[in-house]
């Protein structure tokens, strides 16, 4: 993990290798509903990360023995394209991808009302087209949007961000260099409205005090991401003021469910 180069990751003015401040996130751009086949989809660019998420479901589950009698089975596949990393990666799933598939699924499952759709599957696919550190966080962020785009009812939108320690300083949203060369990296996923943490992992070493600070920093980052998620979903429907008052006959809504 040690740097061979003498170049530092953070300089004396606390400016990071890509020009950011310690608690600054990378620029984020999100789009929703970009694939025509998937029931829901979303795409994120966060720094150099380029990640696509898509949802199919709830739908019939195959193989049948995976069906759960009382809720939908959430199945998640996190996968990296061969050209997404510096050295070409074989398309076959690696152990890392399998672990990430599991923790991502467990980060999102608490937010979904799976109990509404017993015996079905909700299939979530995350494809990393380009990776630059923090892909599981960006993947969760965009997966939550894909789920919302698919109209799957949720308790909250899960947002995700990583924080950590690099060259003695506590930083937010580590890129690939910082992740590999720093002292600690802590990805977090969070449901802001319910104040619930659904993913927490850590590589590295932190004192008890540092851990608290890093976690709080990460949660702040998650809140920022959450804002962006909401804005992205809302921006598809520029409606609020326009639809006010007049035309009461138009607002008849069926009383279903």
């Amino acid at each position, binding site marked *: 993990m040690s740097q061979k180069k003498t170049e530092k990751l953070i300089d004396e003015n606390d400016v990071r290798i890509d020009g950011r401040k310690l608690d600054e996130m990378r620029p984020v751009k999100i789009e929703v509903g970009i694939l025509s086949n998937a*029931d829901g989809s979303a795409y994120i660019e966060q720094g150099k990360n380029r990640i696509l998420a898509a949802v199919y*479901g*709830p*739908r*019939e589950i195959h193989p049948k023995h995976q069906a759960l009698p009382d809720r*939908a089975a959430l199945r998640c596949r996190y996968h990296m394209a061969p050209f997404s990393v510096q050295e070409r990666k074989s398309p076959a799933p690696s152990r890392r991808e399998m672990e990430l598939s599991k923790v991502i699924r467990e980060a999102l499952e608490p*937010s979904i*009302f799976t109990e*509404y*759709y*017993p*015996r*079905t599957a909700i299939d979530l696919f995350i494809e990393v087209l380009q990776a630059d550190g923090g892909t599981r966080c960006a993947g969760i962020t965009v997966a939550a949007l894909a789920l*919302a*785009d*698919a*109209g799957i*009812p*949720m*308790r*909250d*939108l899960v947002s995700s961000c990583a924080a950590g320690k690099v060259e003695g300083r506590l930083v937010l949203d580590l890129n690939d260099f910082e992740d590999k060369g720093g002292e600690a990296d802590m990805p977090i996923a969070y*449901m*802001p*409205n*319910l104040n619930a943490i659904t993913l927490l992992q850590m590589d590295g070493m932190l004192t008890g005090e540092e851990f608290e600070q890093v976690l709080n920093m990460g949660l702040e980052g998650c809140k920022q991401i959450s804002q962006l*998620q*909401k804005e992205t*979903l*809302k921006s*598809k*429907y520029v*409606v*609020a003021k*326009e*639809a*006010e008052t*007049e*035309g009461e*006959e*138009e*607002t*008849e*809504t*069926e009383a*279903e*469910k």
Partner: protein
Amino acid sequence: MPIFCERRQVVTPGDLLAENDYINGENTYRENGKIYATRVGLCDHDDKRIYVVALKAFYVPMVGDTILGKVLEVTLGGWLVDIRAPYLAMLRASDALERPVRPQKDDLPSLFDVGDMMIAKIVAYDRTRDPLLTVLERGLGKITRGQIIEITPTKIPRVIGKKGSMITTIKDLTGCQIMIGQNGRIVISGKSPEDEQLAIMAIRKIEEEAHKTGLTDRITELLKKEKGEKPKKEEVENVSKEN
């Protein structure tokens, strides 16, 4: 009785809508005395209930709904039908034939074959089993002509309109027969493909602008305009000074 959303405000899953004292309606849930949205949509309320009109949601079967289904498989006792829902539906032979089924003689594919579309009704559905259909009522059965389009199911009420006003307008102005499935599938059958295209265009416009007001008027105008243009082109001989 605190409410945190304005009427017809766009909300996202997890947004806090109200506290206590309200009944949580569709697309919301209650936790610790607070009511939150479960889907992206427009929040609204009356005196008692707070609810969200979802902007995008898939169809969940309801007993009594009329739906348009597509046959996926012919089985021993009936057909497996795709109704654009999380569950595949089943149409048993006994719900398709008015008389008792004779397994040796009755040729199920001749009634409905793989790929056939039907208008059917949901007669049974609960958490423990897949929906059951019937085609034995009036107006139900195989669809043999027309164009089928799919829209997001939450917009179906808009396409129908208050007391059917919108769909009647479209039918009248395009001369098409239109059958609407609650599952977001619609079959349009007209005298000409152009008439059908007109109806399709109107429906797609409703889907796009369902959240805006004055829609019925705009659709009426649009259809009249499109329909009005055509006779002018055809009747080149008779100088028509219409409208």
